[in-house]
């Protein structure tokens, strides 16, 4: 794999994960447990979709086949999507929503922190701005994991269940493949070993504070999102998200 090929692939991964998690959060509109949460969830979603747009725009320039950011977001099918499987998992209660967010935010924070010093200036610029947002996201989701984990007996049980349900999707965040390695070697992407270490460190720290038990490090992990092999959820997410672009392919302006 050439560096140029890996870069395009890598940008799509960043974009798609932001986009799909943002979409999942949009589904919660009007359904949050408190009005303050309503605002915060939409705020995080807005950041993520905004970041996705920046990554898509850069990816579209490099791919250079006539597709723009919207075409990349709304006209690719599931097998061409490169998001982490974690991001497509459904909103099954607030503990799962917050657990998903927390595992993602830790990965996102350390990834962006590294990308802010990327040898690719365009990436560094986008990441530096996104890092500010991700720092807030992480602070917020960490707090919620602690509140729910160390709140009431009921909330502890919900939060522990969420950790158990989601754990199998976390391996993909910190298991590098060729693309990740090529990006790291080029000084564009983060060092995979460091990323894994940082992720584990912070997740363990927060879960411990939250009186929660993490999954085993050698647990079986469900992977494939980065290569386009997804869970059954993604097809439905895209069917909804891409509906207008698919139903009205002749429309050029919206």
């Amino acid at each position, binding site marked *: 794999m050439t560096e140029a090929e890996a870069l395009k692939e890598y940008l799509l991964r960043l974009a798609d994960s932001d986009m799909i998690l943002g*979409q999942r959060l*949009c*589904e919660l*509109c*009007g*359904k*949050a*447990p*408190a*009005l*303050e*949460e*309503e*605002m915060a969830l*939409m*705020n995080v*979603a*807005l950041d993520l*979709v*905004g970041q*996705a*747009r920046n990554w*898509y725009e850069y990816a579209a320039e490099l791919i250079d086949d006539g597709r723009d*950011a*919207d075409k990349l*977001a*709304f006209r690719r099918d599931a097998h061409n999507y490169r998001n982490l499987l974690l991001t497509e998992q459904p909103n099954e209660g*607030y503990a799962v929503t917050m657990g998903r967010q927390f595992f993602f935010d830790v990965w996102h924070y350390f990834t962006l922190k590294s990308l802010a010093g990327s040898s690719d200036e365009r990436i560094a610029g986008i990441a530096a701005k996104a890092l500010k947002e991700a720092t807030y996201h992480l602070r917020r989701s960490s707090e919620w994991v*602690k*509140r*729910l984990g*160390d*709140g*009431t007996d*009921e*909330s502890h049980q*919900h939060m522990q269940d969420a950790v158990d349900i989601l754990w199998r999707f976390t391996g993909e965040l910190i298991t590098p493949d060729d693309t990740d390695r090529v990006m790291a070697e080029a000084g564009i992407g983060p060092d995979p070993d460091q990323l894994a270490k940082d992720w584990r460190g912070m997740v363990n720290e927060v879960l411990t504070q939250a009186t929660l038990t993490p999954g085993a490090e050698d647990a079986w992990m469900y992977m494939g999102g980065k290569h386009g092999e997804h869970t059954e959820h993604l097809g439905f997410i895209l069917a*909804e*998200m891409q*509906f*207008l*672009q698919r139903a*009205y392919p*002749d*429309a*050029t*302006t*919206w």
Partner: protein
Amino acid sequence: MYAQLVETGAKRLKTLEEMSPEEREFQEKVDAETKIEPKNWMPEGYRKTLVRQISQHAHSEVVGMLPEGNWVTRAPTLKRKLQLMAKIQDEAGHGLYLYSAMETLGADRDEEIEKLHQGKAKYSSIFNYPTLNWADMGAVGWLVDGAAIVNQVVLQRTSYGPYSRAMVRICKEESFHQRQGYQILLDMMREGTEEQKAMVQDAINRLWWPALMMFGPHDDESPNSQQSLAWKIKRKSNDELRQMFIDQTIPQLEFLGCTAPDPDLKWNEETGHYDFGEINWQEFYDVLNGNGPCNRERINTRKKAIDEGAWVREAAVAYAKKQKQRAQEAA
């Protein structure tokens, strides 16, 4: 906006002579356009009316997120999706801001929300209509936020300080939403396909009359309106506001190249206003009394969110308590 029918408890207006010294002082202050602040004395009827009006307004902001939430997952482009998300976020913010203004009157947010969920409190009837195609997101911004602005611009001068200040801030954001909404429609009409243009006209056909209903019933002889006007909680009558809205909206409608579903709509050279047909008041009261297309769904969604979120809020309270205890023990 979004307060269509607010009970004042008044059967008729009191004259200055009939008022107690406190009431008279209060009324004179209102007449002199001095803002009433939370710590000032106020008649109980004034306080209750404001709580009703501001809570209706806050509920409307929150319930109003739902018809947009219906399309935020299906917005057609990144730009439109981001715009709609930002608008929804603003609305949650308006809700919070308004509930805070309401709490300065001694009302409790949770109690007022409970009344909403029990069907005892109202919110704007417009949000009980479904959003059926993408152009509805444009039409809601243009017509619904537009109607809200007409009311709210006037409410910036409302007599209660915290409410007035909330209106100043909210108006700024809603003007922005309105322009965005109109732009959605304009882009589709100018550069869209025939199918997209049909969506725009369809959205206008469905939302036109409900938007006019947002201003509430005719207020000739309504004691509620007269009392609210005397207290300067309201500043203009429902019919005046409705006329203002129509007069400013028709040129925009024509510029779009669309029509309103009202055969009686025409410019009146003599009055300098547009004449328009009679609103279907039966439908208005039906929707207000719970029998609109989406009343059940809207309230059920809100109730479910709050009910199912109870354990989350309890956890937050329990955790805060534990943290406080730990801090005390450590000190």
